[in-house]
Structures are given as structure tokens and as C-alpha cells.
């Protein structure tokens, strides 16, 4: 049976590992490399590393650093931030990324998702959607690291990126981000109901029950989290033990220090 993945998200700004609240108030929580080494040793299911300032600074990703990260990472690695052309995608895959997350560029040039899927295969194209609830109760997509309204409704945009060829969708609630109050299940459900590709829940996880809900109530295939791992004693392994105890299939539970 396909297992539900628990994915730590590492946000990377300048040389540091950061975490904010509502895509703001960034706080430095360490450096990226040691975090990757620790998660690799602990055999987490997957890692997402997002360079949160590449797009706003209009620069290409730091391929050398990505290459260093991937050299220590024998688990799947998704890289995002500044992914605005096929050349950048090729560069990231060459540097060791297994998947690339495309966010802002997808709104500016939806053809990029299609071309990337045709060239490199849908399996390495992750559409990243950042959304926030507006006054009408709709979930509106935001680009540029949560700062620019796009006018797109999250469910409709998810269907569009699926149609263009994305292989997976990472959905982040901007207002829940960093709050640890739980994922925006309504947002997640709007996305999972409309598409047939896997959806990764992101933004708001504060405890393991939140992760169970993203899977059982909102139909997500994976749960991503950051604050819970940076600021509390909760760990990906314990999260999986909890998920397993609630009937959610996970990998490597109760096999500490080894894989089965």
C-alpha cells in the first residue's frame, strides 16, 4: 500500500534556515545543511527545501548549495524558489533535486508547467499553491511568496495546473502558516476534490492530529510541516507513529535506527 508521507519543509533565506508566521516575521532557526543531515539520518520520507527570496530578488537558485544539500540527502528532495524557466529546472535536476516546485512563474507563464512536464516528466513537476481566504470566503492564490494576489481561486487553479501536467500539488495556507493551529482543511479539500494528482498539505500543522485530519478529512497524500519540528519536541518519526495508530499507512514505524 502507498504510504502517507510526512515531509519537513526547510525554508532557506540568505545562508540561513528560517521560519515565519503568515509568510512574514522570518526568524532564523539554524542553517540548512545540518538540518538536512539530521533528517537524512532519521530517514524522513522526503524533504522540501524552498529558497524563499530567490524569486523576489530575481535571481537564479544557488545551484552549488543545492548540490551540497543533495549530496547529503539520500531521500527524495523537492527544491523550489526562483524556478522560472526550463533552464533553471534542468539546473536544479542536475544539481540533485528530484522534483522542482513551481509557484510564481506558473501564474506568469502557465506554459512553463506544460513544457517542464513534457521535457522532464510530470513526476518531477510540483505545482506550489499559496492561498489565503478572502472576504467572500474564497481561497485566493498568491504569488511572490504570499505577497501578490493573483485573482485565481485555489480549486480552479489546482485543476488548471493538473491539466497543464503538474505531477503533484503543494498547497500552503498563507494565514495558517507558522500558527500551528491546524491546516486549512477547507482549502485542502477544495484542491483534493478537484484533481487526481497527489496533494501535499502545508501551512498550520501544530500537532499530529492535524496531520491525521489532512489525510482522513481532506484527502491529502502527504503532510508537510516546519514550525512543529523547529519549535516543539514533536518529530517526523513520532508523527508517523501517531498516524499509524490512527489507521493511516506510513513507512518505517517502530523500526528505530533502521528501515525494515
Amino acid at each position: 500500500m502507498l504510504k502517507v508521507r510526512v515531509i519537513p519543509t526547510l525554508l532557506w533565506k540568505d545562508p540561513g534556515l528560517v521560519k515565519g508566521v503568515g509568510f512574514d516575521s522570518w526568524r532564523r532557526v539554524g542553517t540548512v545543511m545540518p538540518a538536512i543531515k539530521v533528517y537524512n539520518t532519521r530517514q524522513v520520507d522526503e524533504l522540501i527545501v524552498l529558497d524563499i527570496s530567490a524569486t523576489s530578488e530575481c535571481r537564479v537558485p544557488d545551484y552549488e548549495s543545492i548540490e551540497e544539500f543533495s549530496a547529503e540527502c539520500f531521500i527524495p528532495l523537492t527544491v523550489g524558489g526562483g524556478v522560472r524557466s526550463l533552464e533553471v529546472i534542468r539546473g536544479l535536476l542536475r544539481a540533485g533535486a528530484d522534483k522542482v516546485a513551481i509557484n510564481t512563474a506558473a501564474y506568469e507563464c502557465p506554459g512553463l508547467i506544460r513544457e517542464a512536464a513534457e521535457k522532464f516528466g510530470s513526476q518531477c513537476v510540483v505545482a506550489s499553491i499559496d492561498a489565503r481566504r478572502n472576504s467572500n470566503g474564497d481561497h485566493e492564490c498568491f504569488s511572490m511568496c504570499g505577497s501578490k494576489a493573483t485573482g485565481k481561486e485555489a480549486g480552479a487553479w489546482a485543476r488548471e495546473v493538473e491539466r497543464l501536467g503538474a505531477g503533484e500539488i503543494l498547497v500552503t495556507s498563507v494565514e495558517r502558516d507558522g500558527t500551528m493551529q491546524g491546516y486549512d482543511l477547507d482549502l485542502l479539500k477544495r484542491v483534493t476534490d478537484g484533481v487526481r494528482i497527489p496533494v501535499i498539505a502545508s501551512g498550520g500543522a501544530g500537532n499530529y492530529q492535524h496531520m491525521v485530519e489532512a489525510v482522513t478529512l481532506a484527502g491529502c497524500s502527504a503532510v508537510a510541516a516546519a514550525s512543529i519540528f523547529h519549535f516543539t519536541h514533536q518529530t517526523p518519526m513520532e508523527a508517523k507513529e501517531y498516524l499509524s495508530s490512527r489507521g493511516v499507512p506510513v513507512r518505517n514505524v517502530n523500526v528505530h535506527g533502521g528501515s525494515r
Partner: protein
Amino acid sequence: MSVLIVDYNLSNLGSIRRSIEECGVSPVVSNDPGKLKTASRIVLPGVGSFTDGMANLREMGWAPALREAAMEDRIPLLGICLGMQLLAEKGEEGGTVGGLKLIPGEVRRFAPEDSSTRIPHVGWNEVWKASGNHLFEGIPDGSDFYFVHSYHFIPRRKEHILATTPYCGNFVSAIGVGNIFGVQFHPEKSGRPGFQILKNFLKA
């Protein structure tokens, strides 16, 4: 031991190179098919579409050279993910295209009957052995490996199936004929059981 990783301009070569290094061997990443002659192991990785993969293998001269190395020189060859699929006679990703024709069979898109089955098949799933091949030596049956794909290899002959995985029914997650092997999962991204597969291949 000289391990050659085939660089045909499509793949994430860093992870597979590093994984083989972790197994204690320094592989050579090469875009020169002429180097196959001196290799004692060949790894054909792959991320991308079947059509682009075959186009690149042909343009760069890999296709005939790989056939010769695998069929005549009998150098052990491991195809990973798209690299496994390219071993087939044909694939249907991006139109029907001929493959390397090293293992009889074809590559088709998953066609789930159940609308709740999401495609691509992404994540960790079990690998159950179908035969006692040394590629899986020391790996407990049902171990989880990392997958990310929408297409799968349908071999013409049952005896070529080394392992299967429960998704969309059961699909073939590892194949082998003599010195030629293919795995649909990513051993370089599958932690310890992944390293074990690579070690077994290098020992083969």
C-alpha cells in the same frame, strides 16, 4: 570495478553518483558511448519522458552501444525508473516509440479503475519479491522503496518479473533477464534497502 553512469542529458545524476560512492565505488558519469566497452557495470538512470529519453539515447549514440554492451559483452546493466522503462520494446508516453528492446514488454500509463487512485504514483510503497534473484538479497519482503512515476513496465514473460508493488492492482516494480535489470523505484532515494539493491548489483 568501473561503474559507468549513462549521461544522456535528462537525469538527476548527482544522487545516483553519490549513492554508488556511498557503496564504496567511484562511478564514472559519461556522455561518451565509447566508454561502455571498458565498464564492468552500467547504470541507466532516468527522469523524464520515454520519447525524450529514447530521442537522446539515439542522438548521442547510446542506443546501439547499450544494446551491444548488454547483449553481446554481457555487462551487468541496471535501469532505474525511466531507465528501466527504456529497456522495453516500446513505450506510449508521448506517442508510441520504440525502446532499447532489451527486455520483451511495453510501457503503459497507469489506468486506475478506482477514481480515488491518484496518478502519478508518488511516495513509498512495498516491493514484494516474485523470484529469488540476488538483486534482492538481504532485503526483507515488503520493504518500502520510493517511487515517482505514471507509467509502468508490462513484461511479456512472467519469468522476467523480479518484484511487484501493490498499486493499481499490482504492477511490476523490478525486472531482470540474465545480466540486465530494471527497477521502477529509486534505490538512490530509498534509504537502506536502496543501498542494498545497489550493493547487490555491484556484487552481481
